């Protein structure tokens, strides 16, 4: 397998606080990788850096072997889409206006939506099944519906890579599964891939091929879900004990806190 996204020795600090330290990782085609770790481990910061939103202090970032700073912004944005936590939408816009923004990387400053744009938007809407939300004001949508709209916006870009920051953190179980299934089915397509920050360990074990466990800004453990979510790791880094079963569908249910 070849890496489509590669990060090497990423370091990032805010003031005196070392947020990320010497992080290296890669994402391969057809893969879903989960980034897990306790609060404050640097998961969101890492995702921001991988998405090209924040620049690291040092380290190399490559997309298909090309360094980030050599890539044209919009060309980069066409290949890699970022799904923000909570999917905040600041104005009470119509649902379709939000989805259309996903086509921005394909448009110039003045061009209008073209045939290919409309096809991509229609496909994305069909994929996530949110045709019933069109014509609605996003301010009236539930958190789950908002996240679906945001995901549709990401799909409309037709990116190869999706980076999602805790996309299911605030959702009910039904919407959690729905979002994960949608990202899953899209990323299984050979050339696509996704990197997801997750808090829910069961979902991480169930949907991810590989997990990267961050702790204190370093990669503490990396590998298959059953290896990373070992009892020892959960005890050491999360300070919890879990009931774990890695047979389909995988379950990792915290049962007790360790002091």
């Amino acid at each position: 397998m070849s890496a489509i996204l590669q990060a090497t020795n990423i370091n990032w600090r805010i003031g005196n606080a070392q947020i990320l330290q010497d992080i290296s990782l890669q994402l391969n085609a057809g893969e879903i990788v989960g980034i897990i770790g306790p609060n404050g481990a640097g998961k969101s910061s890492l995702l921001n850096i991988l998405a090209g939103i924040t620049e690291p202090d040092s380290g190399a970032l490559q997309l298909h072997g090309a360094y980030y700073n050599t890539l044209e912004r919009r060309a980069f944005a066409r290949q890699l889409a970022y799904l923000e936590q909570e999917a905040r939408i600041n104005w009470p816009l119509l649902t379709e206006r939000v989805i259309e923004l996903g086509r921005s990387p394909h448009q110039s400053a003045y061009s209008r939506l073209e045939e290919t744009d409309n096809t991509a938007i229609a496909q994305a809407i069909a994929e996530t099944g949110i045709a019933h939300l069109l014509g609605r004001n996003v301010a009236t949508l539930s958190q789950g519906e908002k996240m679906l709209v945001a995901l549709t916006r990401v799909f409309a870009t037709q990116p190869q890579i999706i980076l999602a920051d805790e996309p299911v953190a605030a959702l009910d179980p039904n919407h959690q599964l729905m979002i994960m299934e949608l990202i899953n089915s899209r990323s299984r397509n050979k050339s696509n891939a996704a990197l997801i920050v997750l808090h829910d360990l069961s979902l991480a074990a169930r949907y991810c091929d590989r997990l990267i466990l961050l702790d204190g800004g370093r990669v503490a453990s990396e590998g298959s879900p059953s290896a990373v979510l070992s009892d020892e790791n959960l005890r050491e880094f999360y300070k919890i004990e879990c009931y774990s079963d890695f047979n389909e569908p995988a379950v990792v249910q915290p049962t007790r806190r360790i002091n």
Partner: protein
Amino acid sequence: MKLTDRSGFSLVLLLLSIPLFFYLNLNSGPTDASILQGIQDLIRGEQSTDSLIFIEIRLPRAILAICIGFSLALSGAALQGLLINPLASPDLLGVSQTGVLAAVIVLYYGLSAFGWFIIPLAAMSGALLAAALIFILAGRYQSALTIILIGIAINAMTMAMTSLALNFAPNPFALQEIYFWMLGSLSNRSNNELLFALPFMLVGWVLILSCKRFLDAMSLGEATAKSLGFNIRQQKYLLVTGVAFSTGAAVAVSGNISFIGLMIPHLLRPLVGHEPGRLLFYSGLGGASLLLLADTLVQLLPGAQELQVGVVTAALGGPFFLYLIFKNRHVLR
């Protein structure tokens, strides 16, 4: 009525109101003059009082009203979109007032003798300085609230300094001048003012309108806008420079006409939708229409001395604005 119907309807309404108010504006003034007669004389090539009043006084004033209204409302819509906050406008953030301060210093301390371009240049530099200062002081993590609070502080300081500068200026009409700069007026403007402000305003409009798509993307927040391929820093520079150019040029010739920049985007959102990019051009038209109307009313109102137009924009817009806020308070969060 669906939103798309409503936005088409409001576009038609705006496009009809501008020529109507333009005509009314041309027809009002302190002297009795027939504009139609003036135009006829002009076409026949006759020099008459009517034609002179038309070409030298009424026409530049009406065109200035359009351009200044367009500039202020466009700048307001741009700042509200950039800061993702409905409380922003060039006058509220002190951008206008700093432009006024610079113009006042140049005008009353004899620096304008260097050439006609000095005043608009000073006003624009002042506006640019205020905008830059706001963004620098707000630092790297700019919350909209910090920026607005800094803007309000700058506004208060420059307002005081403008009064101070006018008081110390070797000018017997200081009080009247303070009124002009603080509240704004279009009276006694000529083709000179129009010609020197217009190019700068046009540049500002082009800069702002070129950021249309970026402002739409900012609806999803700065991080997502960046992930969609927008160069945030460059777009911010373009927008802030555009606002400084158009607002600076506007205040250089008309003083600080308040409320248009804040109010117009709010008036139009229920009609054309909340997309910040789309709102830009509509807001410009709305600002042009409102300022034409306000400037017409100013000239129609009886009184020994002409009222400042800023008084009318605030008096007209204020109550309607309040009504809209109450009506939309659930949407505004």
